[in-house]
């Protein structure tokens, strides 16, 4: 179970795995995620978005960026290996219907969860405008896939190496100010990006959905580690989310909570990279 049948690198440190998981593939809907764990004993459980699924082949696609020990270990797996534990699909699926015009804003690795949502919105009859953002051209992922869906397609890079040299909020603001404006915005990316997207759309009164990626342990509502404040109420991202009304999310608190284990995570990641470096040196010596 959970055998990796395909592996590709989408950008530096961004990996795409196609995994055999027939039950998850059958049930999964856009917006949902899985919890993965590389071994039963000491590994950590981490949430990853389901970027795509093929129920006929019984596969799901996971896209992740190597940011810590667990994603590092995942990236070391090869075709034919299995991910020991995969639980899902988790979370409430995206509410898909024909809203009219929807702007889909994706930043960095957030483009991965955005893609199936944009696809479903397009299928539901929406006019889909996509704005993709990346630090630099090499880090932009799923460009072709998103371009194929979009009625209008905008790319921004921080350094201007591709598309507009701008933050995604710039074209977003222009589109909101235009007449007719969008009926809905879906923004997925780093917390800071989602915060500013929500701030941008608020004065225009455009409903804005964000998808949150917080710290989780079980992913089933049991630990509450993923809780965020939404409109003054505490919500669990794993069961109430991951999508919420961006205008109601307390992003500042969420960003602080994301930093809870920063020192620990940094330390183990460094140790893990160091060990790999040592192994490589050994292998070269042999």
């Amino acid at each position, binding site marked *: 179970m959970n055998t990796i049948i395909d592996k590709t690198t989408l950008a530096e440190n961004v990996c795409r795995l196609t995994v055999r998981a027939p039950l*998850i593939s059958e049930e999964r809907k856009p917006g949902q995620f899985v919890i993965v764990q590389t071994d039963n004993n*000491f590994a*950590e459980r981490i949430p990853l978005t389901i970027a795509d699924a093929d129920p006929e082949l019984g596969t799901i696609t996971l896209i992740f960026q190597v940011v810590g020990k667990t994603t590092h270990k995942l990236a070391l797996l090869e075709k034919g290996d299995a991910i020991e534990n995969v639980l899902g699909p988790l979370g409430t699926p995206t509410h898909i219907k024909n809203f009219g015009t929807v702007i889909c804003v994706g930043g960095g690795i957030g483009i991965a969860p955005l893609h199936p949502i944009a696809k479903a919105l397009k299928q539901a009859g929406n006019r889909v405008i996509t704005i993709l953002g990346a630090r630099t051209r090499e880090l932009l992922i799923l460009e072709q896939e998103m371009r194929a869906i979009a009625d209008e397609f905008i790319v921004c890079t921080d350094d201007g190496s591709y598309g507009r040299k701008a933050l995604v909020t710039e074209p977003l603001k222009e589109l909101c100010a235009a007449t007719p404006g969008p009926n809905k915005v879906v923004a997925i990316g780093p917390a800071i990006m989602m915060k500013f997207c929500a701030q941008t759309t608020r004065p225009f009164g455009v409903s804005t959905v964000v998808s949150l990626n917080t710290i989780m342990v*079980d992913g089933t509502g049991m630990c509450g580690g993923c809780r965020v404040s939404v409109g003054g109420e505490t919500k669990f991202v794993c*069961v109430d989310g991951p999508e919420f009304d961006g205008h109601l999310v307390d992003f500042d608190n969420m960003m*602080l*909570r994301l930093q809870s284990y920063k020192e620990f995570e940094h330390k183990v990641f460094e140790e893990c990279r160091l060990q790999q470096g040592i192994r490589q040196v050994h292998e070269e010596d042999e």
Partner: protein
Amino acid sequence: MSHRPTDDRQTQARQLYKELKNKELSNKERMNIPLQEMPAQDPGQRIRNMREVTYGYSPEQAWVEAARCLQCKKAPCIAGCPVGINIPAFIKAVTEEDYAEAIGIIKQDSLLPAICGRVCPQESQCQAPCTLGKALKDVNKAVSIGRLERFVADWEREQAKVVLPDVAESTGKRVAIVGSGPAGITVAADVRRKGHEVVIFEAFHKAGGVMVYGIPEFRLPKAIVQAEIDILTRMGVTLRTNFLVGRTRRLIKLLQDDGFDAIFIGTGAGLPKFMHIEGENLVGVFSANEYLTRTNLMKAYDKEQAHTPIFHSRRVAVLGGGNVAMDAARMAKRIGAEEVNIVYRRTEVEMPARVEEVAHAKEEGINFHLLKNAQRILGDARGRVKSLECLRYELGEPDASGRRRPVPVKGSESYLDVDTVIVSIGNDSNPLIKQTTAELETNKWGNILVDAECKTSLDRVYAGGDIVLGAATVILAMGQGRTAAGTINKQLAG
């Protein structure tokens, strides 16, 4: 109760055993036998390891403790046990040193004696009405039924004398069990015995439910829980981990498409309650569920090997007075916190925690702030907990639960300088199955409604344990499992 060295106790028990073994004892003599405390790791030592705190009785201690039982005709202990174990009979077998007989008697009614002997709140169940305790005018001097239960269950396991229950010839009927906690384990065993095929679905990567994610190693070694799970798999029960019924597959599909003839829901009370006070989402505030899952199931205590991080705490406040609060507090101490405080709004008498856990927590240097309750959690500029604002409480008139209602005293603010707050005020039922199974009736707290036979509003679907009872105990979950299994077996036979 304060800590006494183990050797001391053993020597005393050996002498008593020699003296009394071949004597015909009068009730008065039995009443004079001193209560046998369980030997335990030294508190100073045990707060630096995860190993089980108590060692269990030696055979001599078990005999001496069993000799305290008056074998009274009324046997009120049986009525006090939620599953009605024939307690005097098993204790008599211990005095005859026939441990196989003793464990056999217990197992007629209880499936998990090694676990229940450790985690049952005996002082409010079987030991509460004990005639000896009444005669000595102290419930804490009742016969230590739980310790004796543990002793014979451990004997059976350690001697590898565990007898696999007989499994009847295959009936071709299939039963799905949702959740592998105490209720699910019980149903699985009882239904499997009748020859039905059984599949347990567990959301986590390991089976055992609260016994593996919640109750810490130092109170209930995971190897004991695993031994119970192993018995099930040896009986032919299939275990499917990483399977969240409701999400991975909907309950209805299990019935309609996957050929299950009956389903038992034992998903527990897995939704942590929060206080809904200011500052509860600051960095450093955790539910006890999260804190304990990280440290138990994910093994974050093993800082060398585990990848799951645990917050580095120096000063901790645990809100609540139940077993889970004691577990979280004592775990925090073992993880390395310098100071751990329990904050509880009533007095020690009203604390729902087992007497032994409270005593162990005190021995381990946990501070108790009674008649106090958290009002606000204050943070620093980085959004991290820096202190807990508490109010003093007084006990007023009795409330619906019969306990005197705690009333806050205005203007009595005080502050605890802490960097971590662990909220341990109970759990609500997990709403997932209800949300994905519209036909299932629940009460306003989300507990699944069942009749006396554990039948739900859905045909062929049964439920039991905390998902029905609200947060309760292992033994009550097991008791309901027994009832549900009986109903399922009856349904499948008909």
